């Protein structure tokens, strides 16, 4: 119990410092208040034109589609991650050595940073955009199942962090891993359903996506938000898909731990 309390105190301290640090650049975060709604408007016009007189495309109504993009944007603000960039920068510049010597696991430190950074995102991105979507655009942004949505977003938060951290660890071997990160970001953008809901992909591809981490990063929580889940012709109940998302997160955490140990064995530094 004392150990958990101690860890919680560390997390709170690191998160608070990160929050304060990034608060100094809050206009940087607040750019989303302009960018998010503009992209949303573009999506709105695209899909309104694409639907024409149709009531449904690939099992999704226009209202559901608009809600999906709204939810996807808002969830993105809560789960956004750049642990990979941070870690590869520390490795490339040699600064990781100072973390290797500290009596704290860097992965836990980075996670705590993310908590603080995303709390700032909640205040300066999520809340303002939620108000704009709801009051200005008149989109119903109330999740169908609030509890399951919160749980799914929390799991997406973890999934985003651990996947990006694994990506950052490639820098232990490649030093300059910006190319790898860009490849991943592109794949994640497409296969996590940020650009287009995954039900628009060929059915075989949709089935294959169940075995990749991408859908669990954005598509699953956004669909849980809208109240229904379908992928690869499989319709799942909300508790079942959130459970599956939980299993996927546990597997990624396990993989991350294995790679972290290997990275620590591989790492060598000569003073930073």
């Amino acid at each position, binding site marked *: 119990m004392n150990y958990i309390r101690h860890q919680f105190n560390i997390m709170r301290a690191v998160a608070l410092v990160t929050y304060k640090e990034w608060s100094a*650049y809050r*206009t*940087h975060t607040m*750019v989303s208040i*302009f*960018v998010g709604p*503009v*992209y949303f408007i*573009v999506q709105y*016009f*695209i899909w*309104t*034109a*694409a*639907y*024409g007189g*149709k009531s449904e*495309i*690939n099992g999704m109504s226009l209202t559901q589609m608009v809600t999906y993009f709204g939810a996807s944007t808002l969830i993105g603000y809560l789960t956004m991650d750049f642990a990979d960039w941070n870690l590869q920068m520390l490795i490339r510049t040699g600064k990781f050595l100072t973390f290797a010597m500290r009596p704290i696991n860097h992965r836990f430190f980075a996670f705590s940073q993310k908590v603080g950074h995303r709390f700032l995102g909640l205040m300066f991105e999520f809340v303002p955009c939620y108000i704009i979507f709801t009051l200005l655009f008149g989109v119903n942004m109330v999740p169908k199942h609030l509890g399951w949505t919160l749980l799914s977003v929390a799991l997406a938060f973890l999934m985003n962090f651990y996947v990006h951290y694994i990506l950052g660890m490639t820098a232990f071997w*490649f030093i*300059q891993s*910006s*190319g*790898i990160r*860009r*490849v991943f970001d*592109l794949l994640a*953008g*497409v296969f996590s359903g940020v*650009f*287009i809901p995954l039900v*628009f*992909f060929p059915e075989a591809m949709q089935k294959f996506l169940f075995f990749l981490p991408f859908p669990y990063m954005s598509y699953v929580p956004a669909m849980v938000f809208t109240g229904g889940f379908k992928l690869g012709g499989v319709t799942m109940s909300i508790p079942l898909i959130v459970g599956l998302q939980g299993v996927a997160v546990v597997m990624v955490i396990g993989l991350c731990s294995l790679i972290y140990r290997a990275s620590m064995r591989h790492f060598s530094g000569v003073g930073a």
Partner: protein
Amino acid sequence: MKRYLLIYRECIKVAFATASTYRLNFFLNSVIMLLGDILFPLVTILIYGSGAGFEGWTIYEVLLIQSVFTMSMAIADMSFHGIMWATMFAVREGNFEMVLLMPVDTMFLLMAKTFSIDGIGLLFGGIAIFIISLINLTAPTLIMWLQFVAMFVVGMMVMLGISLIMAATSFKWVGNSRIPEIFDSLRSFGKYPQSIFPKTVLIVSSYVLPVAMIGFFPAAALLGRGGYVMFYAILPCVLFMTLGILLYRSMVRLYQGVGG
């Protein structure tokens, strides 16, 4: 003029040398741009593949608009888009004076120094989609081709204007790496047939912030669907670029530093 051409040639050589130093990174960056280029129209392909679409526009017509947009982006990325990052970095680090001390035009030097060949994958991808689209459309006449080239050049002026306004903004909004996101979001109105947007958006995207000239109008000229509207949009585009140049130059004049 000759001196400036020599400087530009040297900068291109340096860009190639840099790319060859980090070969894997350059290769991945080029591949990613190429893949990104393929995936961008994928959304259009998936929309049309599901039986939906934009009324009055075939899939190849929409892909043509997007390929023109992509080619514009690629050329801008390679030739002058880097001025924004270079200015932002120099202002943030406080060493913009070092650029001002050079005996050449500041704006030219920053554009030349940031020449990048990373966008080559994007350019090839754009050209490939452009050719595929054209093969599946009625062959344009010579007049259409001439109009296309003219509109494409004017579209590049808009891209230059955007880059310079972003760079000028970074003098005041120091170190905000998200400035491009603001303009990227606005540029996304130029990637689609303008008929899907309401009239107000249409007026803004054609005459106020003329992003329609980047992808839509050149493609419309090639399809013979431009009409007089695209000619009316030329003047706002030229004015937009002029505004960018004047704004950047005035920000350079206003810059104050204490020596890096």
